[in-house]
């Protein structure tokens, strides 16, 4: 049985009407935007299950757009997100779809760029405003965004993981979880930590030989 803090019961402070369909959707949008690189001209939201059925009534559409604009779930501007996106010349499309075996409140957020390939993040809103990200552009992952996250891609060879973990340890950052997968010669590592991953850590890790992609997301909780 889970232990609930006071602010799990009296919270989150959020824009209504639904913690799972609105607050969670805003969080998913925001974390997807933080994972994707900047410069996208269009975003497609592929909605699954209950998200596909009730997204207009619950304002899931407004919340998702607010998220990719970087707004918090408690930001009252959330309601005007369609207009803000338009003012920023950002194209938006909602597509009702079946994403297969997933939680009913699942969305695949696809970012489109003029000068490079599409990029997507897939995640679910699992209740009370909490989320889980399950896929980043084809890499299967699983994290809630409650902890700081580091996502690294590198040419797989001996010693990379140990170099990363020793930098973290030197900087007094404890690793909470670590997930590593490999496709052909390219490895993907997702690391959740207990404390903030400061800029210096990011810079030192980015200098490790063979690293092709590095992204740090410190936290989505407001």
């Amino acid at each position, binding site marked *: 049985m889970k232990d609930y*803090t*006071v602010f799990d*019961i*009296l*919270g989150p402070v959020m*824009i*209504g*009407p639904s*913690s799972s369909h609105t607050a969670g959707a805003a969080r998913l949008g925001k974390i997807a935007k933080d994972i994707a690189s900047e410069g996208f001209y269009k975003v497609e939201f592929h909605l699954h299950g209950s998200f596909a059925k009730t997204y207009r009534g*619950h304002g899931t559409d407004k919340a998702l757009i607010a998220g990719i604009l970087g707004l918090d779930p408690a930001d009252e501007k959330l309601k005007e997100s369609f207009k803000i996106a338009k003012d920023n010349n950002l194209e938006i499309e909602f597509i009702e779809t079946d994403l297969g075996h997933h939680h009913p409140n699942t969305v695949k957020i696809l970012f489109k760029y003029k000068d490079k390939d599409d990029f997507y993040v897939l995640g679910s809103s699992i209740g009370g405003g909490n989320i889980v990200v399950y896929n980043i552009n084809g890499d299967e992952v699983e994290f809630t965004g409650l902890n700081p996250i580091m996502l690294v891609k590198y040419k797989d060879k001996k010693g990379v993981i140990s170099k990363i973990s020793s930098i973290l340890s030197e900087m007094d950052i404890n690793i909470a979880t670590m997930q590593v997968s490999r496709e052909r010669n390219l490895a993907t590592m997702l690391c959740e930590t207990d404390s903030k991953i400061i800029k210096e850590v990011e810079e030192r890790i980015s200098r490790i030989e063979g690293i092709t992609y590095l992204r740090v997301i410190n936290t989505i909780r407001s």
Partner: protein
Amino acid sequence: MFNTGSELLKLCEEKNAKIYDMVILKEMEATGLSKEEVLDKMKGTLEVMQASATAGLNKELISNTGITGGNSKRVEDYRKKGNTFAGEIVNSAMAMALSTSEVNASMGRICAAPTAGASGILPSTILSAKDKLNLSDDMLINGLYTAAGVGQIVARIATISGAEGGCQAECGVAAAMGAAAIVEMSGGSPQQALNAAGFALANILGLVCDPIGGLVEFPCNLRNASGVVNGLISADMALAGVQAPIPFDEIVEAMYKVGIALPETLRETALGGLAATPTARELTKHIIEQNK
């Protein structure tokens, strides 16, 4: 520290403390924060609640779908005429509960308590107590901690999700949280506070979750209004000394068992109850069409 009502009462007795004292202490242990920091954190929550409970009193707030709204102002205007049947406090409390419900449905800022669907009950309870008992913000914050303690126990041994336990788990629990808070803010004992919480749950045991189109609008708004009143009268009964033959923990367990025994059609799926009426189905169709 405590997981059940009986453990909480035992602690309160040993330490000669209120429920809120123990909940604050538990929060300090869980988060590593000081007492000042913990209390300070609740100030922000109280501010959000005060704003949401009053925003709709003088202004018609219409929901995202357009099917509900403006009822907080209707009740408030009616109350002001001074000719209500149930009286000032009841009508004022209903108007404030409707206000937060309308803020929520119109995509304004609320604090889930314990959920967004039931978010109107606790703010209205706390502000009703403030008006009636002339309480300081510090005492209102204590009341919110009492409420949170009751919510923690229910969430741990039962559920606070409508999809799992029906409306009793959302509006019922919010009323129980509010009832306990009123008792402690009125100077009642921890035992009386949990009696009040138990009464509030017992009063609506079995209440189903059946909103139109699965959206947090109707009858959620009515159940926030009736929920706050349920809390107020439960508190009064406990303070009057009404007997509680079944302990709070057992009522909570019963609520959980009733909840999971409810058919899925009556647990936030929009397949049964009021959601399955011909008019609700028409409205749902209309909402979908209108937004296309």
